[in-house]
């Protein structure tokens, strides 16, 4: 019984850490947006990186994706999906962006 409550504590701590981390990252994003305004690409880069960091924090602490052997299959799945998603999204943005430029609908 003691082992169980120990495990419970550990698992709960995992959630709380994930929550705390995400909270900090979210606050940072909105704080940056608030202080520097959301006009420049530099600010946007910072915001996107923080967003990416939060994705990883939640994947690890909420969804329990890591390199442990037992969750390797999920990790493989997520990585493969990311690959396909990147091909699809970047390809789309590349193609449609190029078309927009050539049709002069996009301000160069």
């Amino acid at each position, binding site marked *: 019984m003691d082992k*169980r*409550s120990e*495990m*419970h504590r*550990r*698992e*709960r701590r995992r*959630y*709380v850490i*994930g*929550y705390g981390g*995400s*909270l900090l990252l*979210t606050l940072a*994003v*909105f704080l940056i*947006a608030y202080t520097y305004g*959301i*006009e*420049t*690409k530099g*600010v*946007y880069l910072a*915001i*996107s990186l923080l*967003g990416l960091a*939060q*994705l990883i924090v*939640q*994947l690890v602490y*909420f*969804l*329990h994706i*890591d390199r*442990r052997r*037992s*969750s390797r*299959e*999920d990790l493989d*799945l*997520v990585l493969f*999906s990311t690959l*396909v*998603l990147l091909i*699809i*999204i970047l390809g*789309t*943005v590349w193609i*449609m*962006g190029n078309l*927009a430029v050539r049709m002069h*609908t*996009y*301000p160069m």
Partner: protein
Amino acid sequence: MKRAPSHSYPGLNLGRRHESAHKATEVVTFGFWVFLMSDLVYFGLMFAIYITMIDAQAGGPGPHELFDLKSVFAQTMILLTSSLTVGLAMLALKYNLPRSRIVLWFGVTLVLGLSFLVLEIRDFMAMAEKGGIPQRSGFLSAFYGLVPLHGLHVSVGCLWLIVLGIQLRVFGLTDLLMSRVVRLALFWHFLDLIWIGIITIVYFGGLTYG
């Protein structure tokens, strides 16, 4: 990193007496992961379309006139917190905590989910008042194709939560229901991940490039 117990999903460890249930749950949960990845592609494409249509405002209202970051911030906080509470609800079930705790975390998650939806709908209504309706421009179509799609997922999550709550009351905590709770938690966390994408790309991206 400390060596964690040998289970990969939140709450999957049903204990030693449930070996066969454990195997079945593993299969179902993996299947649900695959479904989520398919769903992820859905969202990914909507993001891609949104990116290509940020400029297609056709003289209509754009992100600067329409987006209300305060409300977005509130929604973000609510959804993030609900992601924590759904996890706690699952832990409460898994470790046989008193019924009151289970009800508490389920209830809090549901309330948070519903308030998220209320805020989101209020946003849409405010946007519509400023002329921000999907029929106005390609940009707005892309916005309304993506953000309400996420909202629809949250609604499904809420419905699922209610149905599961009833089922837990009727049948008690069976292995099957436990595995459904695991999947619901996964689904809920997944929606929070998508929401991070939405604030980063739709809201901040829209404000930067729109």
